[in-house]
């Protein structure tokens, strides 16, 4: 009954006799059709798809991933190629040498974001910079996920004295001022790692990936897994009381199997959300470090070091600073918004927890 149509309550018994006729087969079938039951992922994804902000940030992240990992292969300039004749160009400007070449009928690819003082194309450097940021964010979060979930699960599952000792260690690491230790590790680890790459045969890959990047991964994975471990432990503590765990144990499953197959799979929502929110935190710290000059080494670049380089030409070439600033902020913002969306979709209970970082 629609209240607007009937301003006064009716005391008549309004019965439509048609409502009481037996349903025919077509009607019965139409009632029987239900939404196909969706699994955990299907249900969560359905909620996520309805969240416009999360979907837009997912699209932005996809654009960044394509831009950072695919576009550089086809881009006519390279991030470390210097061109003395076309230094300090403004966006879409051409140097005299390039203009001469264009007059000869040659096609010169435009510098969308201009060039830096060494004549390197800023656009490709921005793309390579976001590649570093994304790599750091994703790999560091994967390492943190691995260490944190295993540690938290073991502590939560075995409980007792093991749990107490393990969580004391977590508390200690948690109270360590992270940035200070990261800076010190970053300062001190670089040289030994370089030596390791040069002298020990099995470690040549370190040079390939970049000493500073390895450094960042090491320090992040040493310090940042504790937040993840705490969250996973609290989940496991609640889960291990449930009957299916008792059943699994009664059927003779080993502890390792119970943790892997039954406990961690049941925390998958929490793990997804926490890992996604760890990505922007890692990118944030990486950009901070490279702004201080402790990030990746030249000629490789990162958005933080580009912002720091741009400071010297801030009055004449503000677009360099602004472009790097917008890129970093946009990457971190989209991951944060996606993480918020994932949390709403997969794990509404997690609202108050957050990962350190």
């Amino acid at each position, binding site marked *: 009954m629609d209240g607007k149509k009937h301003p006064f309550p009716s005391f008549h018994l309004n019965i439509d006799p048609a409502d009481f006729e037996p349903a025919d087969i077509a009607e019965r079938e139409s009632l029987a059709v239900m939404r196909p039951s969706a699994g955990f992922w299907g249900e969560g994804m359905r909620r996520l798809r309805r969240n416009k902000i999360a979907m837009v940030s997912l699209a932005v992240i996809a654009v960044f991933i394509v831009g950072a990992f695919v576009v550089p292969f086809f881009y006519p300039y390279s991030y470390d190629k210097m061109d003395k004749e076309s230094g300090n160009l403004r966006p879409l400007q051409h140097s005299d040498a390039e203009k001469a070449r264009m007059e000869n009928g040659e096609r010169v690819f435009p510098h969308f974001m201009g060039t830096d003082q060494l004549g390197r194309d800023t656009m490709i450097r921005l793309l390579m910079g976001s590649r570093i940021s994304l790599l750091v964010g994703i790999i560091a979060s994967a390492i943190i996920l691995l260490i944190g979930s295993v540690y938290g699960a073991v502590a939560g599952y075995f409980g007792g004295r093991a749990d107490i000792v393990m969580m004391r260690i977590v508390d200690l690491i948690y*109270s360590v*001022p992270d*940035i*200070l230790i990261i800076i010190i590790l970053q300062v001190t680890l670089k*040289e030994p790692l370089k030596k390791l790459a040069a002298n020990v045969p099995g470690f040549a890959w370190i040079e390939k990936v970049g000493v500073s990047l390895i450094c960042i991964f090491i320090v992040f994975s040493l310090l940042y897994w504790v937040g993840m471990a705490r969250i996973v432990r609290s989940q496991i503590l609640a889960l291990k009381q449930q009957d299916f765990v008792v059943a699994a144990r009664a059927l003779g499953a080993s502890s390792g199997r119970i943790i892997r197959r039954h406990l961690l799979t049941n925390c998958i929502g929490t793990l997804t959300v926490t890992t996604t929110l760890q990505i922007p935190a890692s990118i944030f710290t990486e950009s901070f470090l490279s702004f*201080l000059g*402790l990030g990746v080494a030249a000629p490789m670049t990162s958005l933080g070091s580009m*912002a720091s380089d741009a400071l010297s030409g801030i009055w004449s070439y503000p677009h360099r600073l602004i472009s790097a*600033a917008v890129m*970093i902020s946009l990457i971190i913002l989209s991951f944060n918004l996606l993480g918020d969306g994932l949390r709403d979709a997969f794990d509404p209970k997690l609202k108050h927890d957050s990962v350190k970082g």
Partner: protein
Amino acid sequence: MVKYICKRVLAAVITMLGISVITFALMKFVPGGPFLAEKAPSAAVTAALEAKYGLDKHPVEQYFTYMKGVLRGDLGPSIKKRGRTVAEIIAAGFPVSAKLGAIAIAVAVLLGVPLGSIAALCRGKWQDNLILVAATTGISVPSFITASLLLVTFGVKNNVTFGLATPAHYIIPVAALAFLPMSYIARLIRSSMLDVMGQDYMRTAKAKGLSQAVILFKHALRNSVLPVITYLGPAVAYTLTGSFVVERICTIPGLGNEFVSSIINRDYPMIMGTTLFLAALIIVMNVAVDIVYRLVDPRITFK
């Protein structure tokens, strides 16, 4: 309560000792020493210098000598800034940074709490969306970006680009340092206030006929401000580390600026001393915040 405080203080002391050992070991571990300049001094000079600063002794012995000094408030001499001790440099730089940081945190709390409350009260309306978007942007923009963008846009026009000569010079560094904590607090308050407003006692208060203002300030706000207290510890840590970059961008002679130059100069006693000092500060703040939180919120039991 006393037991709890003792436990926390003990844990803090252990953490500090751990940090001092790790920092000291790492400092000894690095190759490039402080006397490796482009024009390398002769072996005899280097040996004499190392003897003067006690760098030729066994590392464990060096550590104990150093820690004895630390307990007396002596953090050793700065190697690069001749004639000044680390303690002097910290004493000169810290008040500047502390003042800046305190103002930034005050601004963050004083703006973040009302913004978060407004968002919670107007849940789902445009005010809420606006504040949420702004706050999410706020936790996504690193402080060095806020600082440098403000410098380009606002600083040049008003000629307040470096130093802290007038109150107007405080605007850029304070805004850069306060933006993230403010956004975080606004988000925190919003979610905790929404939580509180769903509680039964809020309905009771309304049913008793209390005015909106009393309900809001006496019942809702007082309960939802509690999480902000726990955030103050991390906020202090954030403003301290944020000061490294912000002081550099705005050319402020604070401790953050000194710390970054000591890293670039490989001034070991300075790095070590500043790290210990800042770490102690952050840890003490965290312990203090936890204790205050338990005093303020009687619902938390002492274990």
